[in-house]
């Protein structure tokens, strides 16, 4: 039953992935056209040489052929021995279907290898932020629920409302200003303002953690704001349930009631909420990565977009989108595993 559901969902995801690849490809090509960075600026190239370079890159082909090349269909066609069907003679390279996201227009490096170089950093940052968010938001939410209507509760509400409204890049700059710049000026121990490790230091664990603290804090603040609010209202609801009153009435210690009976039921819905963030694991931290110079997928996309490296950006956007679709799929299947009602719907 569950396997059937998972398969149905996976099949439904295929047209979405195909559609996404068409949208990003068409957008990118209507953006950049067949622009090759720097090519027109080189005075030593004759018109013939430019034309030759462009045809070697396959840019003289019609758009749909370029798309077929990029997706990897052309590669398949050629490798099953039907190369004659392909219009014109050009180098056919492996495409998306072969796991290749293309080559950089600027330095010719493989998008896939660049991507996998940066991916661990991005995942480390996002997972740390999500973990910090969970670990902090549950106790804060419980606190707000127990002290409902008090000053503590109002303070936590204020914190949560600000967490959704504060621009992440500004919060990042303020943290750098205080924890790096001012602490340094005051002669206190200060945090590094960017990167993953101190250059030429070898990069031990403590150094890595010091670099991780600020970006992860900024990123987790948003999660904290949403999840603590949610835990609070969910806890308030559970605390008014009959079984909580029964547990209290039979003389159970209030801590035990709170942490064993109430909290467990209050936190179950939070799983759904954390699951919603799963697809954004790779793309959610772009702005934070830029502010802190954190060498992840987001910073790479940002730098390459500024350099008009459009094949690289195209590959990265497609990769991030495919991950979103996969993340949604995974979340759907997880919920179905947890809640049988979803499978039947």
């Amino acid at each position: 039953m569950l396997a059937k559901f998972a398969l149905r969902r996976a099949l439904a995801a295929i047209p979405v992935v195909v559609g996404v690849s068409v949208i990003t490809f068409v957008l990118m090509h209507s953006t950049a056209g067949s622009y090759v960075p720097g090519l027109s600026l080189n005075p030593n190239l004759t018109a013939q040489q430019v034309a030759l370079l462009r045809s070697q890159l396959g840019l003289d082909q019609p758009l749909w052929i370029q798309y077929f090349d990029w997706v990897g269909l052309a590669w398949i066609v050629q490798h099953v021995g039907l190369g004659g069907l392909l219009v014109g003679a050009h180098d056919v390279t492996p495409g998306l279907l072969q796991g290749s996201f293309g080559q950089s227009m600027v330095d010719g490096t493989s998008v896939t290898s660049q991507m996998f170089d940066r991916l661990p950093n991005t995942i480390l940052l996002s997972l740390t932020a999500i973990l910090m968010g969970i670990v902090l938001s549950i106790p804060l939410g419980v606190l707000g629920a127990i002290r409902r209507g008090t000053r503590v509760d109002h303070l936590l509400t204020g914190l949560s409302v600000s967490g959704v409204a504060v621009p992440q890049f500004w919060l990042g700059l303020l943290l750098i200003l205080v924890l790096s710049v001012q602490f340094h000026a005051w002669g206190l121990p200060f945090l590094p303002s960017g990167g993953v490790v101190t250059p030429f230091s070898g990069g031990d664990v403590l150094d890595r953690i010091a670099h991780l603290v600020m970006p992860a804090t900024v990123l987790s603040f948003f999660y904290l704001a949403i999840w603590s609010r949610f835990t609070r209202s969910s806890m308030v609801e559970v605390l008014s349930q009959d079984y909580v009153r029964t547990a209290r009435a039979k003389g159970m210690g209030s801590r035990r009631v709170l942490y064993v009976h109430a909290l467990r039921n209050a936190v179950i819905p939070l799983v759904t909420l954390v699951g919603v963030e799963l697809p954004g694991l790779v793309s959610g931290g772009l702005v934070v990565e830029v502010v802190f110079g954190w060498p992840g997928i987001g910073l790479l996309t940002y730098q390459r977009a500024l350099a008009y490296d459009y094949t690289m950006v195209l590959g990265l956007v497609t990769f991030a989108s495919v991950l979103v679709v996969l993340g949604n799929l995974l979340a759907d299947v997880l919920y179905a595993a947890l809640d049988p009602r979803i499978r039947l719907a």
Partner: protein
Amino acid sequence: MIDQGTVEGLQIGGVVPTTAAGRPARSYWAESWMTLRANRVGMAAGSLIVFLAVVAVLAPFVSHYVTHIDPTKQDLDSQFLGPGPGHWLGADETGRDTFTRLMWGAQVSLGVGFLTVSMQIVLGGGVGLIAGFFGGSLDNVLMRLVDMVLAIPAIFLFILMSILFTPNAVTLSMIIASVGWGVVARLVRGEVLSVRSRDFMLATRSLGASSARLILRHLLPNVLAVMIVAASLNVGQIILAEAALDFLGFGIHPPTPSWGNMLSNAQTYFTHSTWLVIFPGVMIFITVLAANLFGNAVRDAFDPRLR
């Protein structure tokens, strides 16, 4: 509030129709509006937004008649001058006045915020109405399109499209709206599905009303509340996204001042001129906070699903 209404009803001789509960029947909109008016936090936040909008509109007059400073006017004598009498909120690396630039920046933030949300409502609402009303394969195609648009991470899509247009306020709004409309379309479609199956729709149809008439005269008024709620909840996020794009350099470019690009510029100098980084951020924060609080109040008052 309810008592007042009853008294008014009595004064004109009890001709006001009452509901079973004995209170005067008010239209959905009148009742929602009253709930909204009673929400103090919401009204305060709404007033702040209105005030900021007025400041944005009047920025040219204020900078001409009150501060006497043009937002792009450079004055190397007051380079990095701290907040004080001449420059209330300090000056930047070329002596441009922070206060004046913040006022002009409000035009960008609020302008893009309202323009984007209108575009989202028109496009998302339209697609949601059509998909929900006609159903079948058209619905399927439109909703898969929404899935695709929402699968591309928003900030990546914004960056991709910012290379396409050289953004000004209008194109930037189009870029941001190109994502958010999907969420609105889903919401509206869901609401249409529930309204469509009600008896009055069948009755109207059997009287021979055309599809266009059914959608515009009968469905639209019933889903308008959901659209308004979605719109007011979105404004804050749009302003944040716009500021982030300006900050990254994919939005409004200098010399046109915007809160985001002022912060981007401040990055270089903020170790010695902290005001350059503090004030634009505070403006974004306050505006988004007010927009969110007002949005929440509108949702509490207007959302039919919360009634």
